[in-house]
């Protein structure tokens, strides 16, 4: 394992270099000028703008800016936010903590629901249960997550008044209250994931359901539950697992909508804010960080993959 992991990590270095170059180019290619954005529409004079630019180091030629940034990055310094002056490194880490908590909880609960649901739908293929599950997932797929989030908020926050609507308490500070604040965002994210994963799981299971070894498992007299769980599931899970990887990476990189609706100080919100504000240091730092999250998540998924399919060797 360590050798394999090491290899993969080494392999990801080119990813980072590519990412760094693209990040830099793309960020600079964005229309809009950070100095301008920072001053809002109130540009009273060119001098102020110039002053702002030189403060931000934007008056240097591009290649110089790139070298400066790269050098700083390699020495472990991602710079400070134009927007708030915070250290980008610690800012990212802090925000990532929030996002990761929500996303992992949501993914965990989504898997708990969608795997059985997908298996059940496949097991009862073309029955009323199946159609109901398919219908519900599609319905969810056609609802914008923003809207669902807001409805949850209105229902549980405003109408029923069971859960808080704004604010956030870290679970490391106060577990009980922290959980209270997490319920809605986690539910809202999980709902979206459930819709996707259930459908993937169902399709995968249908594919496996007809295999001879499933019949053989039945011939052993295993109860249907065990047939599904022990024989269908591991073989049918592969495409779902890939999807989990893709989604997990995507969400860890930021669940901007959810974080906005549920006022979570997460990475996604930070990223979107920094895009809007053209906060170059934060944007660049966040993108690099996210690239790292991607590489790592996909690495884990690949390892898990060979666990579910012993014939696929890690290379």
């Amino acid at each position, binding site marked *: 394992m360590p050798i394999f992991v090491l290899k993969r990590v080494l392999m990801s270095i080119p990813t980072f270099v590519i990412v760094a170059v693209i990040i830099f180019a793309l960020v600079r290619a964005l*229309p*809009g000028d950070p100095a301008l954005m920072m001053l*809002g529409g109130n540009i009273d004079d060119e001098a102020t703008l110039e002053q702002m630019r030189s403060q931000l180091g934007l008056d240097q030629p591009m290649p110089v800016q790139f070298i400066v940034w790269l050098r700083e990055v390699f020495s472990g310094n991602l710079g400070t936010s134009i927007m708030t*002056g915070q250290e980008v490194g610690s800012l990212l880490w802090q925000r990532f903590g929030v996002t990761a908590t929500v996303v992992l909880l949501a993914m965990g609960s989504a898997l708990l629901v969608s795997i059985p649901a997908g298996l059940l739908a496949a097991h009862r293929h073309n029955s009323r249960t199946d159609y109901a599950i398919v219908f519900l997932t599609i319905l969810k797929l056609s609802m914008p997550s923003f809207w669902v989030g807001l409805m949850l908020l209105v229902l549980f*926050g*405003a109408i029923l008044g069971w859960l808080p609507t*704004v604010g956030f308490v870290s679970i490391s500070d106060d577990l009980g209250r922290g959980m209270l604040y997490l319920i809605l965002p986690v539910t809202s994210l999980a709902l979206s994931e459930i819709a996707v994963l259930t459908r993937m799981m169902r399709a995968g299971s249908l594919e496996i359901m007809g295999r001879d070894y499933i019949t053989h498992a039945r011939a052993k007299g295993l109860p249907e539950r065990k047939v599904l769980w022990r024989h269908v599931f591991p073989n049918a899970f592969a495409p779902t697992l890939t999807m989990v990887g893709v989604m997990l990476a995507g969400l860890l990189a930021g669940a901007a909508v959810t974080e*906005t609706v549920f006022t979570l100080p997460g990475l996604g919100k930070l990223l979107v804010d920094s895009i809007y504000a053209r906060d170059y240091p934060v944007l660049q730092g966040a993108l690099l960080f996210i690239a790292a999250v991607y590489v790592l998540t996909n690495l884990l998924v690949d390892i898990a993959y060979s666990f579910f399919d012993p014939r696929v060797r890690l290379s």
Partner: protein
Amino acid sequence: DSMVRTSLNADIRGTNPGVTRDGNTDEVHGHMIEGLVTYASDFSIIPMLAESYEISEDGRTYTFKLRKGVKFHNGEEMTASDVEWSWNRLAGEASESHCKNFFNGENNIKVTSAKAQGDDTFVITLAEPYAVFLATMARFDCGSMAVLHPDSVNADGSWNKPIGTGPYMMGDHAPGRYVELNRFEDYSSRDGAPDGYGGGKNPTVDVLRWEIVGEGAVSKTALLAGDLDLVDIDAMTAAELKDQPNFSVDAAESAVWDTYLLNSDDPVLSDVRIRRAMAHAIDPQRIMAAITEGFGKASPSPVPPMSANYTDVQAKYLTYDVEKAKALLEEAGYNGEEITILATRRNGAYYERALMAQAMMMDAGINARLEVVEWGSQLEAYRNGSGYQMQSFTFSPRLHAGLSFEMFTGDADRKAWKNPDAVAMMNESLRTGDPEELQAIIDRLHEAFIEEVPAIGLGHRTLFTGMSSKIDGFENWGAGLLRGWMLKVKD
């Protein structure tokens, strides 16, 4: 402890007034700091930390008499040397603030000296007289040139925390989550009633808390759920909340100006008849009514109605008249050339305004097209004064009638009105210290504005605030900044 919970749509950018700032941040800072002078509710200048001030005959020397017994948040008493230190912090050579350029000659005003005289006098000398000097000093984005205790910075000169004289002092700040301010027990208030950003401030609420809520629909929900007490809302929500029992809605006209900037450099729009035709084609009344759900009305002049300089002259504008528009187009030989309206999907109805203008222009036979871009792009087009023919735009409050024209008049690329006569008049309006002369210039400027149509004004935005019924004492004013010290919490 009593607490009022309100919201900001983005976190504050820092705690350093005049340096790390934006609109949201200014609102929070405004509770902690004060300057020598500030704006009254009619946007005239009144003393704040100054007991009084005097302007010399030649209009170059300003002598501020400081109030006695004003305490900083650390308990120390304010002296003239603190004022001088604070002035240099923002306007001195080493200043990191954009405010420095307002006083170093880059923009009309050149301060030649700013010195403490004794313990309670502060004197500023200008190279040339300039009428809006005090108004510039009072600017919110410079925290009214806030007077801070020198301990606000660390020994190495880096920023520590704001130690001001305001009615509230810095409390908890959880980045990305909330900002809290605590009532300053030893606040020394002026006498009298609150007036604009000045006057007597007698805070009763112990804690003001701003939650960072990025989405308007969420803060509204939180208000309904009782998790927030006071939030900025949009017209739609205002209409909806108005009739609900436990809530109240405040609607106030502000000095925020909604307008359409026209690019006179454009080949089509360079013909003033076309611009005039456009003005006649657009009905500000209907548009304002639509975007404010009937709360607001049109006021096309750049000078806000609450301004002392707003008179019958400023109330005039090119009225909605499709026939006239068509005739003008005909006259100008307009041939269906496309006119694009730049807009963005951003709070502030930029898009809605553009869309409605487009529809109205189409009715008058103008081939108008909408181009919706991201805010950053629009801002860039605005700054360069190119890449657009018409754009829906909004200017933040300018609290001097001259500045109301200055915001789109001048030589810079971004300014829509580059006519030298207008620029000269505008500059004149900023220099004169005589109110009557000022009014005359402003009137002339307005006439020329209607004549030349460098922009089509719509109106001054109505700001809506939704509150739970336990909040008392809330009053909005033209500048739109929250004044937490006026709030009371009912039991």
